[in-house]
């Protein structure tokens, strides 16, 4: 049995408190009126002079079509509407930062749940010793789901303007969104989110109950039941994951669409999930637990990290190249915004998510060296955090993004909750799923 060390508990609470203070600071310092924004703009104009002015004009020409109209009007109306536009972006900033963090950690536990279900459906032998680690990571799923759902309810109450299609004023003046309002409307959006979440949480709780029951069972009835449920869950997951990515991320840019977006989000999800499984396992091994996890298990996880990093890049590039080649204005705006306003995070994440894991984890021997896995794992997690950041921020805060207190403390806050929930769940059950029929194979797994 694992006991949640008081040291780690303190770290988790410290992260939560620091994060909470930072998030609160972000909300309090967000400008509340157009006058505030004009003051900020005046300050920055005086500080940066000509450069800032040309920068603002230049970047606004290339954002979405609706923004373009805004900025042209803003130019002719000498700044008032422009300032209002900036005000909305700045007011969105702390909300978006929180949303990135909420989604990222929720995505890790959802990806782990999918990976876990694959292990059961495939009746994999090697990974049985890691089941309790995976179950612990998925135990964040209900918590994350509730936090996200509350966030969506707050969005639908117009406390923030992340989802522009939720604003009836916008829909009335936008034919494209109006055409999609049969799907993109607040009640249906919340119902869909609830359906996805209930389905995922149901499988999470059910699978946990069945493996715990299997530990002391004399027959395999729990195991076979879990096998069938896992296969059914994977079918449900594949559809709902795709729809979730349209609803929760792609609809932030309601004019833009990409047909492989669900897979792209899934790639990010699964690689972050496997990296987290590896990191938690190595941490526990370092503390003297999980003595049955050997080099070969970590080697396999590192292979998955390597493979899915390449897979992510493949999907990222497939999406990018088709849009770049076709060069259709309504599609290409998505990447133009990212290239103009987000060049460093957008291109930097390719280094973090592709080049670095590719070069470091290519050698077979390095996949067995713990600190190599930890170092690459941290880089991969940061890279995919940036990936989610670049998926969400351009639509909600435009060129007003900054990696500051709001962004960092949102990540810390949710990380604190995540650590607390995951390690509490770890301490609730034995670390070896000893009832699984493949447990011997897994303990002797050798590559």
């Amino acid at each position: 049995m694992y006991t949640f060390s008081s040291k780690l508990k303190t770290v988790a609470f410290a992260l939560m408190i620091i994060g909470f203070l930072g998030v609160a600071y972000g909300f309090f310092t967000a400008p509340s009126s157009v006058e505030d924004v004009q003051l900020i703009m005046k300050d920055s104009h005086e500080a940066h002079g000509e450069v800032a002015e040309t920068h603002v004009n230049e970047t606004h020409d290339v954002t979405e079509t609706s923004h373009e109209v805004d900025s042209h009007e803003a130019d002719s109306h000498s700044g008032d509407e422009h300032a209002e536009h900036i005000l909305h972006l700045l007011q969105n900033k702390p909300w978006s930062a929180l949303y990135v963090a909420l989604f990222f950690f929720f995505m890790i536990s959802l990806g782990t749940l999918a990976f876990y279900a694959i292990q059961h459906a495939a009746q994999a032998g090697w990974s049985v010793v890691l089941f309790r680690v995976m179950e612990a990571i998925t135990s964040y799923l209900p918590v994350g789901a509730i936090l996200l759902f509350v966030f969506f309810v707050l969005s639908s109450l117009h406390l923030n303007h992340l989802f522009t299609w939720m604003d009836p004023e916008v829909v009335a003046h936008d034919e494209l969104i109006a055409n999609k309002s049969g799907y993109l409307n607040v009640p249906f959006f919340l119902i869909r989110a609830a359906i996805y979440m209930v389905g995922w949480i149901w499988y999470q709780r059910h699978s946990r109950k069945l493996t715990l029951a299997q530990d002391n069972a004399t027959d395999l009835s729990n195991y076979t039941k879990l096998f069938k449920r896992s296969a059914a869950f994977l079918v449900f997951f594949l559809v709902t994951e795709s729809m979730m990515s349209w609803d929760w991320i792609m609809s932030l840019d309601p004019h833009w669409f990409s047909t492989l977006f669900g897979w792209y989000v899934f790639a990010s999800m699964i690689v972050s999930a496997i990296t987290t499984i590896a990191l938690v396992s190595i941490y526990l091994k370092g503390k003297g637990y999980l003595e049955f996890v050997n080099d070969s298990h970590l080697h396999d996880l590192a292979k998955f990290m390597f493979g899915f990093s390449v897979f992510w890049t493949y999907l990222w590039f497939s999406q990018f190249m088709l849009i770049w080649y076709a060069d259709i204005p309504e599609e290409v705006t998505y990447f133009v915004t990212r290239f103009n306003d987000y060049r460093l995070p957008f291109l930097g994440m390719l280094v973090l998510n592709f080049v670095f894991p590719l070069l470091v984890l290519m050698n077979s021997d390095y996949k067995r060296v713990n600190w190599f896995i930890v170092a690459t794992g941290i880089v991969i997690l940061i890279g995919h955090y940036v990936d989610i950041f670049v998926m969400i921020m351009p639509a909600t805060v435009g060129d007003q993004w900054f990696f500051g207190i709001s962004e960092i403390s949102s990540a810390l806050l949710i990380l604190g909750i995540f650590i607390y929930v995951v390690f509490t769940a770890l301490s609730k059950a034995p670390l070896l799923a000893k009832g699984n029929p493949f447990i011997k194979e897994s303990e002797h797994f050798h590559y």
Partner: protein
Amino acid sequence: MSNKVVQAMYNDDDILLDAVKETRSSNHHIEEVYTPFPVHGLEKAMGLKDTRIAITAFMYGCVGFMFSIWMMNYMMIEQWPQDIGGKPSFSFIQNMPAFVPIMFEMSVFFAAHLMVITFYMRSKLWPFKEAENPDPRTTDDMFVMEVLVDNNEAELVSFLEKTGTVEIKVTEK
């Protein structure tokens, strides 16, 4: 140095594996082992060094990658620039995304083909090559361990007879 070897034959891969371990632990030099199929763990038991073909594969991949960059630049930018989809055709970097699939394929092509050729050369396999295996039965159901004789023929033969062999032959190589 003599080129005399003892060839001990086995009819089971587990017995062979044990024999290889025993022979090595009593400090006899194993020249070669011939098997009809890959025996799991044999290379470790024989104490063979890890293969370096992965390193060559990486280098060949890099060669293919470089070659594809040169090739696409020569074909599409220098020699015969074409206007495809309105993309500016006089700049490599601005057309680069379209060349990425080719770079990828060329890296794989070079790595795979050159690696196979390297493997054949390293294993001294080429067309019309005479078979090197000492007994045609090693392509059927027999395993042969070849041990070098170092002025200890009688001792070696009596040692190998105790390792579960079914047949022993002493030959000049």
